[in-house]
């Protein structure tokens, strides 16, 4: 069984941005690749997609090349994962591995080439949602970290944090509680609301427990869209200006 409970790819137990968390992909050395990974994390219904879209537009206007990536979007894995979710024969380990395969595919085909080309990679969720979902299902945390040792540590991770009541109202107004978001596979009973609430609470606790380990920049997602975006832009601007791909561009508070 893997021993390591936390990642430590640098000295003094720190995680270095832009490096592999663990053993990585030996056949793809990534040192000195100029691009940056900015990950936006959070549960369902926190408004990630909206924020990413706004961020993307703002970055492109400034002259940054931007590549977006998101979960289960890999051409290789999407059909398989859809099929898996609609069947009832898969166990938690199989799901974890399917998601990890999707991530590996996107990492190698989309993210790494973008980093090499000096692009900004906006990731709609990164490995942390996968880690949270797996941990809630009782999958060993050390094993999970070993599995994702091939992932690259993002340069910025924003965690859009909300509370379960706000989350519930948003999800119900939008599309309703589906089987998976309600953690129904955990078989806590037939009531979707109860299951959703309990499951999302557990997920929120998992995200909180990872905030320090992975240096999450926590943002209150219950504020208006503009307020959150302003916060994001300010922090991204500060980071990119001092990085090797920083460009001169319009004001952070560009009028909309």
């Amino acid at each position, binding site marked *: *069984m*893997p021993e390591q409970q936390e990642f430590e790819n640098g000295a003094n137990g720190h995680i270095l941005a832009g490096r592999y968390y*663990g*053993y*990585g*992909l*030996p*056949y793809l050395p990534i040192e000195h690749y100029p691009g940056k990974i900015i990950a936006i994390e959070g549960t369902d219904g926190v408004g990630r997609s909206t924020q990413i879209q706004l961020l993307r537009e703002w970055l492109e206007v400034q002259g940054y090349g931007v590549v977006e990536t998101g979960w289960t979007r890999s051409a*290789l894995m999407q059909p398989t994962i859809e099929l898996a979710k609609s069947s009832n*024969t*898969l*166990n938690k*380990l*199989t799901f974890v*591995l*399917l998601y*990890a*395969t999707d991530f*590996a*595919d996107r990492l*190698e*085909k989309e993210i790494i080439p973008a980093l090499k080309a000096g692009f900004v990679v906006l990731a709609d969720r990164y490995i942390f949602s996968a880690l949270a979902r797996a941990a809630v299902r009782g999958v060993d945390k050390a*094993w999970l970290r*070993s*599995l994702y*040792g*091939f992932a690259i540590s993002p340069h910025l991770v924003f965690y859009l944090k909300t509370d379960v009541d706000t989350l519930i109202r948003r999800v119900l107004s939008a599309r309703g509680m589906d089987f998976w978001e309600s953690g129904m596979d955990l078989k806590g009973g037939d009531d979707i609301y109860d299951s959703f609430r309990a499951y999302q609470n557990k997920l929120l606790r998992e995200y909180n427990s990872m905030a320090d380990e992975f240096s999450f920049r926590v943002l209150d997602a219950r504020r208006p869209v503009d307020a959150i975006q302003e916060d994001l832009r300010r922090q991204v601007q500060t980071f990119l200006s001092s990085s090797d791909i920083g460009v001169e561009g319009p004001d952070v508070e560009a009028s909309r």
Partner: protein
Amino acid sequence: MTPTTFSLLHATDFADRQLYNIVPPLKAGMIVLADRYAYTAFARDVARGVDRRWVRDLYSFAVRPDLALYFRVPIDVSLDRLMARRVKLKFYEAGMDMGWSQNLVDSFRIFQGKVLDEYDRLVDEFGLSVVDASLAITDQQQMVRNLVSRQLEKPAAAALAETVAG
């Protein structure tokens, strides 16, 4: 597919097979004959370039076999047999995705050479029982039966929790 996605997809399939086809029969006291196991991944995936330690950690959920037989065959024998059956070497089987050669046969030779080197390491690392697969089938079967008989005479297998790599 990349070496890593290839490795993960096979691990996914293995996890599924273990859940349905391996653990229940073991719990029922049956004998499970596995055509290939985690060791295939350790040899093949590492030959493709994944990290040796990573793939072992990946398979740490796999049940440790009571007996693992490695049918060792020199690369030329393997090639001769494939050629004799007029089998067309498949793309991934020949390691063509690795770009070692444009020629299927040459690529296969290079790839399988690396795989065989990895298997040799596994023999000591995991205590694999080697069967000389260049011998006649009946001779091999005799050796296999001897190994299996000896194994069956041993006391009942250790707890199911004992895993392949840890």
